């Protein structure tokens, strides 16, 4: 299986930001958007494919967390 492509990473980034904007609580919403932006920016120059895959997996898990939180927090 090919390692995550640039397009996939960008899709993930957009999806995470979209989901974060749905948080009802001001603190969580601002934190999620800020942290996601800073984390993707910080890791943008990572070259090692194994490391990239690990980061992408972590991001997918965090995206799942954000989605579940919407059901809890309302």
């Amino acid at each position, binding site marked *: 299986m090919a390692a995550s492509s640039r397009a996939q990473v960008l*899709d993930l980034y957009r999806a995470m930001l979209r989901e974060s904007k749905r948080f*009802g609580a*001001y*603190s*969580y919403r601002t*934190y999620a958007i800020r942290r996601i932006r800073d984390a993707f920016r910080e890791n943008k120059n990572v070259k090692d494919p194994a490391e990239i895959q690990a980061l992408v997996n972590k991001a997918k898990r965090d995206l799942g967390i954000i989605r579940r939180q919407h059901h*809890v927090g309302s």
Partner: protein
Amino acid sequence: MLLRTAWRRVATAAPAAPGPRAKAPTRGLRLRGIDLTPQSAVPSDAATALEAESVLRPLYMDVQATTPLDPRVLDAMLPYLVNYYGNPHSRTHAYGWESEAAMECARQQVASLIGADPREIIFTSGATESNNIAIKGVARFYRSRKKHLITTQTEHKCVLDSCRSLEAEGFKVTYLPVKKSGIIDLKELEAAIQPDTSLVSVMTVNNEIGVKQPIKEIGQICSSRKVYFHTDAAQAVGKIPLDVNDMKIDLMSISGHKIYGPKGVGAIYIRRRPRVRVEALQSGGGQERGMRSGTVPTPLVVGLGAACEVAQQEMEYDHKRISKLAERLIQKIMKSLPDVVMNGDPEHHYPGCINLSFAYVEGESLLMALKDVALSSGSACTSASLEPSYVLRAIGTDEDLAHSSIRFGIGRFTTEEEVDYTVEKCIHHVKRLREMSPLWEMVQDGIDLKSIKWTQH
């Protein structure tokens, strides 16, 4: 490609959620009324949803009192509140085994944050219980040979109260004074250690003034004099790097709800090499190596473990951000207002806890004026009384400055807008209150307040 169209469908569906996002940037920054009814009820239709959203709540700037749950922590806890509800001490079925596995995983997470072995972590109901176990447990175990303890005057109430109850049992306690900076004098500590001292207890980061004690040096002194060293690290764990072996700490108290974890859980680190013996306070079925009997609350400890893991990953990022926000707050206030004193050493200081004294302004009236910001003028434990905090008295603050102190707490979720709003309101109200103050008038006229002879009637 199918995946991408699925994303697009989800994205177009999202704006159908009720309107709070449209008001996003201004929410929480203006208080229109405090709704005392709990907001947990799910609104039945869009109209009531909007109504519920329009009741805003104060900004939260009191992270030393408690912190909100991090969403990642709540996510880790939920399965153990819903499906995996077994007792971790049940050894005969899968419910027990899975709870036990989660508990041990959490233990490993807490241990790795402080550089300890998982067998050295005991789960308790919070830092207060941990402090009680550490102080009373160690003192009572070694009571036949050692009858002396040392602590500081700026410790948390639970430590001071435990020491006081031990004094009633016949122990002797030395309460070390602190310098004006809030830091203890290491020479005084060395002089206070006697041959029959069993324990020295000094907190890592003070919850009222944010001062960092020289833990490494104290650990060095204690280990060289063969005295156990306990530190209440409730405000420090997960915020500054701590290593129990590097700093020669024998006992450490950890609190869950100070590091974005759940309330009602904490832990105590008890060193095994060399072994620290502790007399158990709570008798029962021998759980937690006999040191703290009682069923371990799996969802809470899973939350504590998750909070510790998140804190370990986010420590550097949070510290950098909080330092920047703290710098911004202090600079802005000091630039616009004269006669503001920051309590505590400016160098050995955790940036997220800022205690400022505004001269010629009464602290309670400033707190009431800043009603749309949740602040405190001391610790939550002492907020019920009108006395100025004993910590401020211990660092030698004048009575009038001690009464006018406010503690600003900056945490992981604090935004720049919240800091700016707080600063703006604070400056506005301090100026307004000073205009009304006769003391301020006298100072402006050049009268030295200390030279006034107030008449007695």
